[in-house]
């Protein structure tokens, strides 16, 4: 496991595009679940090509925040802009945003009644209006890239957890998104399988994909992240490069969190 936040490799070269407008902007975002204030004045900007890792204790609002980005959750105050388009109740804008934002879930959420290939080709065929043959070739290409092309005709129930998560990543990639959101992708996996999924994500990062990743895998953060954002109780407490956040924590809360992570391993 990632004890003492060792790195599993050389830090991936940065691919941040400063010339393009920011991919994601969160501007004073507030969200309540009933009376519970779960996101407090969250400000975040993610540039195109930037890789952001969000960490924090459970209940800190990390998952809620990234689920607001593709409007799986709605925010009550503040603005969220994805690729320049503001998130609101406008359905067409929402469809445009969701087409370009891919999401990978903690519980994989593969469609169990469809084969792996059908899982991957469903959205390209029906949302991007791709012809079936082209969609299948695309799907096989991505399944090969995540190293499970031989499983294409199987059903998700027949695959291991690590394989299912890699299929989920391939499925999201088949839509050729500009931004990838990862909501604790390895939290439901056995230690042996975590590595195969993280390797896939590192490969993705090396290709310059804009990504926001909520994770507890600090080794991954060290290797891949351009920026680490620490959240606690709904607020962004600290953010900076992995070096700054892990080696030079400024706030007490971050220091407490880091000590717990280190002690836990």
């Amino acid at each position, binding site marked *: 496991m990632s004890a003492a936040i060792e790195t599993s490799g050389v830090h991936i070269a940065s691919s941040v595009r400063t010339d393009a407008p920011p991919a994601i902007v969160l501007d004073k975002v507030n969200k309540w679940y009933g009376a519970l204030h779960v996101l407090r004045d969250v400000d975040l900007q993610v540039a195109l090509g930037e890789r952001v890792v969000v960490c924090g204790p459970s209940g800190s609002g990390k998952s809620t925040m990234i689920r607001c980005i*593709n409007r*799986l959750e709605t925010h009550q105050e503040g603005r969220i802009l994805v690729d320049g388009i503001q998130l609101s109740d406008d359905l067409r804008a929402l469809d445009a945003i969701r087409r370009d934002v891919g999401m990978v*879930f903690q519980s994989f*959420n593969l469609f169990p*009644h469809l084969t792996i290939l059908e899982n991957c080709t469903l959205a390209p065929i029906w949302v991007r209006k791709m012809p079936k043959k082209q969609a299948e070739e695309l799907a096989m290409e991505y399944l090969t890239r995540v190293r499970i092309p031989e499983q294409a005709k199987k059903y*998700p129930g*027949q695959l291991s957890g690590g*394989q299912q998560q890699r299929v989920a990543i391939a499925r999201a990639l088949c839509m050729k998104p500009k931004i990838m959101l990862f909501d604790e992708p390895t939290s439901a996996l056995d230690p042996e399988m975590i590595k195969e999924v993280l390797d896939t994500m590192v490969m993705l990062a090396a290709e310059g994909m804009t990504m926001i990743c909520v994770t507890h895998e600090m080794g991954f953060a060290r290797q891949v992240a351009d920026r680490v954002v620490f959240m606690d109780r709904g607020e962004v407490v600290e953010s900076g490069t992995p070096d700054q956040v892990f080696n030079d924590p400024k706030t007490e809360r971050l220091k407490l969190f880091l000590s717990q992570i280190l002690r836990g391993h």
Partner: protein
Amino acid sequence: MSDITLNAATATPEATPRNPPVATTGPIAWVRANLFSGWLSTAVTLVLAYFIVKAIIGVIDWAFINAIWTVPVNANGVAQTQACRDLHGTGACWAVIAEKHRFMLFGTYPYDEHWRPAIVCLLFIGLYIVSAMRRFWTWVLIPIWAATLTVIGILMWGGIFGLTYVPQERWGGLPITLILATFGLAFAFPLSILVALGRRSSLPAIKVICVLYVELIRGVPLISLLFMASVMFPLFLPEGMNIDKLLRAQIAIILFAGAYLAEVVRGGLQALPKGQYEAADAMGLSYWQKTGFIILPQALRLVIPPLVNTFIGFFKDTSLVLIIGIFDLLTAGKTAIVEPSWQGFGVEVYVFVGLIYLAFCFAMSKYSQGLEAELNRHRRR
């Protein structure tokens, strides 16, 4: 990269597997374990076996050995049923079936034209069989249904192609049951899916309408709905416009079944993990794409048992149209023994009618088991 599906068994060879000992598997072992596993179990088995054998012998005696299969008919066409009455209780009088089966099956339909409703019944059965085969689950099913139902309509009504016209009041028996059940469930099922989706809609108007529909319909008995359809409906129609009784009964059955099925489907929609909805949303699928490709296929698979349960129940509920004077299979059976010479042979009539219902309902039940097993193959590893 390690492939986790390679399991450990192939990595290290073990001892070759042996066959299990004979005494613990196979039919003899089952009997020993379940029927004769101890003194109490053996005693219960023997007592139950005695009663079961006695009952079976009794039924065989009554139904076959002592039964009378035909009775003589005198010069006036009245059946001489004295022999049957003497045997009452010890032997079945299947002669009533032999005499009256055409009335029970086809009601007051003209005697010479009975071949038409007979073909109609066979067409319905054929339609069920074709619709059941997964091979036909494509758009081709719609024209098949449309064509078959048109032919059924032509055969029952007549008036064209040289067939004599038979007004709807004379229809009866099995065709009426099948018409009411088939049209009823064929329209109620899509209606129920729409209502179930509507109840979960975020648009308040749609949600309220669907909730009202379900709660109002579920709040009244089917009989009262049939009464309302038959008596009140014409009051609301403009002068001179008349919807015939069968159609009114049909609409009532569709609305009633739709409400119950809607709740069953809604159960399935709720049982689906939220992650499925979220993954479909995150991929940018529209509402109908999500519902049609992801949600409904899974939700309906989940609720096949209660769905088929409701279907079977409604198939038999069609017998309630007796209340508004429509002759379905059960009513025709009852009416067959109103005649003085055949009075009192209700048991044989109800056994006959019951067997017909049983045939259809059991077929539905068996089919649903097969369907469940086939559709859930993806869940088996």
